[in-house]
């Protein structure tokens, strides 16, 4: 393989990983504020993709507007999910809330399949020219920087973080923990939907597409222990690159059919390394 091709594949892997990272950041945000692992995160991705397609192709809106409205619509769904399913469950433990998100995800998926059909939809056109990967990486970078600024430089960002550290203490300084949870769901939905929207030119939107993209996002977020944004991005990008490289190498046990095995093993190794280094640091310090 030529170095040029190698770089091309690296870029596509990074871009693919960026999408995982976007989805994963949604997991991270909800988890940090509420301790819920949101299994409906994949559905936000799906809504981003499906709505983008519908608004663009069926409604006929200009592409940028279609994408924007799709993300907004998914955000609204995220907010409504919180209001209708999470918020009423006052007595519920975190694990019960997780099951609620599983139920909600089945529900959302079913509704979309029922209303807009269960078959695949055509991909959107590339945002411009033939360089969707660059768009994806660019948009992810912008989102990440914005998110970082949001969490480190605004009061609301700090308040979200405070909720995660100590909910009761947060309410005692005047933070409405429930409105923060609401915000986190809306924000997570937006991130997921952005992931879904940017990948739509490269895939066929479909009512079940959230299952696998959600899973990959989950893996990315889990590498960051559902807390660390940096860890999530690193996890997502490693996953994306590992997947691409396994296919490119296509050698012996690293055949393309084992893509997921290799990618998971790489991630678990990273995890063990990170964790043992963490333990070593703790012991040394």
């Amino acid at each position, binding site marked *: 393989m030529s170095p040029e091709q190698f770089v*091309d*594949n690296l870029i596509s*892997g990074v871009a693919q990983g960026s999408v995982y990272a976007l989805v994963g950041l949604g997991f991270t945000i909800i988890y940090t504020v509420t301790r819920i692992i949101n299994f409906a995160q994949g559905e936000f991705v799906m809504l981003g993709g499906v709505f983008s397609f519908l608004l663009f192709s069926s409604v006929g809106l200009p592409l940028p507007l279609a994408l924007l409205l799709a993300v907004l619509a998914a955000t609204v769904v995220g907010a409504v999910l919180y209001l209708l399913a999470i918020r009423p469950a006052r007595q519920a433990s975190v694990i019960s809330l997780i099951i609620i998100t599983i139920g909600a995800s089945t529900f959302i998926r079913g509704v979309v399949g029922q209303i807009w059909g269960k*078959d695949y939809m055509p*991909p959107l056109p590339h945002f411009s020219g033939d360089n969707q990967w660059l768009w994806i990486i660019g948009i992810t970078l912008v989102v990440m920087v914005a998110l970082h600024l949001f969490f480190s430089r605004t009061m609301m960002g700090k308040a979200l973080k405070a909720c995660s550290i100590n909910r009761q203490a947060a309410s005692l300084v005047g933070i409405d923990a429930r409105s923060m949870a609401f915000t986190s769901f809306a924000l997570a939905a937006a991130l997921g939907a952005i992931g879904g929207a940017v990948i739509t030119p490269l895939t066929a939107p479909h009512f079940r597409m959230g299952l*696998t993209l959600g899973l990959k996002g989950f893996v990315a977020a889990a590498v960051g222990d559902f807390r660390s944004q940096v860890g999530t991005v690193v996890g997502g990008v490693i996953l994306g690159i590992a997947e*691409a490289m396994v296919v490119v190498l*296509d050698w012996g046990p690293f055949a393309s*059919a084992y893509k997921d095995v290799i990618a998971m093993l790489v991630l678990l190794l990273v995890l063990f390394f990170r964790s043992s280094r963490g333990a070593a640091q703790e012991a040394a310090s």
Partner: protein
Amino acid sequence: SESETIKIGALFDVTGPNSPLGTPEKQVVEMMETQINHAGGINGVPIEVIVYDTEGKEDSCVSLATRLIEQDGVVAIIGPSSTGESLAVIDTVDKAQIPMVSCAADERITIPVGDSIWVFKTPQTTYMAVQEIYSYIQDQGITKIAIMTDTKGFGAGGKKDLEDEASNYGLTIVSNQSYDNEETTNWDPFISKIENSGAEAVVCWGTNPGPALIAKALDGTGIPFFGSHGIANTKFIEVAGDAAEGVIFPVGKMLVADQLPDSDPQKAVLLQLKSDYEALYGEGTCNTFAGHAYDALKMVQMAVEEVAPDKETLTEELKDRKAFAAKIRTEIENIEGFAGTGGVFNMSPDDHCGLSKGCMVVVKIVNGEWVWLQD
């Protein structure tokens, strides 16, 4: 009263991973149920098709099959949609002695017949399609091919046959990759692998959307794309867009029904089904999967008519369901020369699929339409 309907069970994956197959299958049997009953049922007795959604789960499929047999009292089952589910319920229908006509393609469902004499299937077997497309490729003077197969059942079956048959057609597989249909979005590494292998053509075995996305990704490399009968629907053309142009694949005759010579025994059936189905569910919706379920139900209907040529015998038969089911099975096994959508079926005690070479054709997509490539 209860015994006054003929109950037929159907198991389709309507909401699971194979919902693009299960949905038309369900729709076609619902349509046929109405049609048959509209025409006074079978010999004056209405039929009732009970359709359950298996969600693509083997265990659900087994308990739903039992439910059809034990609770609903069906005399035959059509479906399931997928190979795995079909193989999973064989034991159940075999023990209960109820005939089943599967809509899944894998040859292991009916070979060897000795595993269960109660099981039949309608779709063409994969190696028939492989043979069709390979002989076409050979005719183009191509010798080096890359194969891309879905990791799931349909693609894996194709992979095996593609590998086995290649040398018979003077073909060398220079790149052999599998992909996960539901999750792959980054096709670039696959494509660059193919480009590096020196392949003159890509043969891709899978169902939507993988092949369409691969065709799209291949667009511009100049390497021609050959598909399987898994892409025999308008969705492929929609999803692949311009890249669908020029794609060639083997398929049952449904797609090119209007191009068939009038002498073709299947032509009338195909055109009829197509116009009925599309009148109900929309232009361009009829596909080969609907055809598989059509053939299955049709065979059951024919067998029932054979067992009970008039209303009295039928009413009599309905009293002993077990015996009736056994007779239906025998009659399905005796079906001969039935021109269905998938081909002309000649069932026999050693062949529970009943199709032979020639039931498939090679088509090419030209201007978004399927064109029959007559030799």
